[in-house]
């Protein structure tokens, strides 16, 4: 990417930060967009699923796929193993489809209120103002409203569109790969998602192509009582390369909103996928009221030899975060990485980590996890390193660090290892530290204000992970951290 494009992206992000400044540095994405919507009434049964599928003009195979997932889901129960206090959900109270009434055919037809929404969020969709060098798929409630730079990408042979269009336009690709990494019955939430997913992004990078720009999806929940169940599928053919970013926000509402997504990545021989997330869903207020339940199944498969998948996530939002971006290292010498910063404040709860499954020979994985807890929040790292018998010479390095701010928060680490091949080397390091009163006084006695001292220390703590993010997003991530740790001391 040229330095010029970097600059313009940075400008947009700076402007976004100014919005945050104006809004008193609170959750700046908490506004509601007034538009007319159509949708399905709350409730879930086979009929709802058929209706959903019909609204989306889906082929018969898709409808059947959904229905079989739904039937499977009915036999399952919400998992209880996470270190989370999560009230059982009433799935009949959720609406499974909400979309802006006006259905745009092109950007010019998109409701100005929606364009305005994305402008305010710092993700302008008009290509002249758009983040140069970043193609955006904007998902508003249940549907993708627009995908930018489609033409430029198509010229390079890259397919980047909403999942709904992919089902219609590239059915053979979708049929081949959908559910091939996360099977519909994988877990309770994945099954639900498979039954009711409304939209999401589809990316296909053909053989040998280096995607000419960053691809990005911006998820926005707007409607009330609506769950967002999006589905993302990224396929990188042999020798291809793609970097993908995901951003998300939701209005402030007193009720909890459910977001249960599934993301599947497939990397064929020598392909590389970098998937970065900056998650900023509404976390609820300082008393723990409201906020998004972010329950996500993210999994990548290094299907080909010498392929590589990197997950980088900065998690500052959501009332509850439940996600374990994982890599199945099937190809020989394939590499999986997971870099994570998870911040919790007030009453937020996070149970996050990763799973690295070594199947191929000489596969390598690296896990860097940084958890920061403040207020009365709870932050858990949960990770599994699994080395199958076939994975001779497998290597894993795991480092888990926790930073506590204040005395009422909690940090927990649950590292699991299952090593079935004696030639494997698995290393694990963990630390827990606190921002001490002595450190605070030391900084202040040098003239640094409390909040700045906290963000300086936190930033130092997270540096290793921020380095993995595209530069502009590292800047954004740093600002988000400052906002989410507002008032953490004193």
């Amino acid at each position: 990417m040229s330095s010029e494009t970097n600059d313009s992206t940075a400008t947009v992000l700076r402007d976004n930060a100014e919005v945050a400044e104006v809004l008193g540095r609170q959750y700046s994405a908490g506004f509601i967009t007034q538009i007319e919507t159509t949708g399905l009434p709350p409730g879930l049964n086979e009929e709802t699923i058929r209706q959903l599928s019909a609204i989306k003009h889906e082929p018969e195979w898709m409808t059947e796929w959904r229905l079989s997932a739904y039937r499977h889901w009915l036999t399952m129960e919400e998992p209880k193993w996470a270190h989370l206090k999560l009230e059982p959900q009433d799935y009949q109270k959720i609406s499974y489809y909400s979309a802006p009434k006006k259905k745009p055919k092109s950007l010019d037809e998109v409701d100005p209120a929606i364009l305005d929404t994305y402008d305010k969020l710092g993700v302008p969709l008009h290509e002249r103002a758009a983040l140069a060098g970043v193609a955006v798929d904007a998902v508003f409630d249940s549907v993708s409203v627009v995908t930018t730079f489609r033409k430029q990408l198509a010229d390079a042979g890259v397919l980047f569109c909403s999942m709904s269009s992919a089902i219609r336009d590239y059915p053979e690709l979708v049929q081949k790969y959908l559910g091939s990494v996360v099977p519909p019955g994988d877990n309770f939430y994945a099954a639900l998602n498979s039954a009711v997913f409304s939209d999401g992004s589809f990316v296909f990078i053909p053989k040998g192509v280096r995607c000419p720009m960053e691809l990005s999806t911006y998820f926005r929940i707007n409607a009330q009582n609506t769950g967002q169940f999006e589905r993302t599928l990224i396929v990188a053919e042999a020798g291809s390369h793609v970097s993908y970013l995901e951003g998300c926000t939701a209005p402030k509402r007193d009720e909890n909103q459910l977001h249960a997504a599934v993301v599947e990545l497939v990397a064929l021989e020598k392909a590389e996928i970098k998937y970065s997330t900056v998650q900023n869903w509404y976390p609820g207020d300082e008393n723990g009221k409201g906020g998004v339940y972010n329950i996500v199944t993210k999994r990548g498969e290094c299907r080909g030899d010498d392929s590589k998948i990197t997950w980088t996530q900065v998690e500052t939002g959501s009332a509850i975060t439940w996600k374990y971006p994982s890599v199945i290292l099937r190809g020989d010498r394939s590499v999986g990485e997971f870099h994570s910063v998870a911040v919790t404040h007030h009453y937020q709860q996070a149970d996050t980590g990763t799973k690295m499954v070594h199947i191929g020979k000489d596969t390598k994985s690296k896990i860097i996890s940084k958890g920061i807890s403040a207020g009365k929040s709870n932050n858990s790292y949960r990770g599994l390193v699994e080395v199958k018998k076939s994975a001779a010479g497998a290597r894993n390095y795991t480092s888990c660090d926790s930073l506590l701010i204040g005395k009422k928060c909690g940090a927990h680490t649950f590292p699991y290892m299952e090593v079935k091949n004696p030639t494997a080397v698995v290393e694990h390091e963990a630390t827990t530290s606190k921002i001490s009163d002595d450190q605070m006084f030391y900084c202040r006695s040098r003239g640094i204000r409390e909040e700045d001292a906290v963000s300086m220390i936190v930033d130092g703590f997270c540096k290793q992970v921020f380095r993995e993010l595209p530069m502009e997003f590292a800047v954004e991530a740093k600002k988000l951290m400052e906002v989410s740790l507002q008032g953490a001391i004193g």
Partner: protein
Amino acid sequence: MLKIENLHARVAGKEILKGLTLAVNAGEVHAIMGPNGAGKSTLGNVLAGRPGYEVTAGSVEFNGVNILELPPEERAAAGVFLALQYPVEIPGVNNTYFLRTALNAQRKARGENELDSMAFLKTVREKLKIMQISDDLLKRAVNEGFSGGEKKRNEIFQMALLEPKLAILDETDSGLDIDALKQVSQGVNALRSPERSFLVITHYQRLLDYITPDFVHVLADGKIVESGDRTLALKLEEHGYAWVKEHEAGVVGEPA
């Protein structure tokens, strides 16, 4: 410049400073000596505004301002600097970055413009030269894994960079080897100026061979019990603090 009157302060519910009075004029160097646990570090901490140190009576005026009402960061911006007896480690935070953040925070608070990284590095290089410190320590995290002596030197380096009006050095000489002691002293001397004052807390009269004080005070049991010129330090070295107590009580006359 600094006027401390009848200062009483408590730590953890216990009265430590019990009516301390001390005046320091601009440009002066005052040495403070005294037995372990007398309250010397407490005085430094109270002046710097450390939370937990509660002033129960008395006043502290710094350049006409009652600094007891200011939070630590504002005292720093006003020119108070405390080199800690036990400097604190901040893992993950680069030393240079820390210094720049501190300097710019102070400059901003004083309404001065902030230094960009070029200007800042230039200043750093000048100060490194004066202090005869290698820049290795600047590349590392703040005090992390520094030896005792390196921590003390880093404190003095911070002082050189922040250019305070009042520098309180709490046993900066403890733990320094002979060469380092000379270097640190030279650094302090290089910073001496008619506008800058020093409170030098030490147990060793040897430091005062290098940094010549204008006054020497003995702090015992929360008060200044004896003041004099630098010869007082020599007498203390010879006779110990027991003499001060007896002397104070008028039992023994001034030793010959």
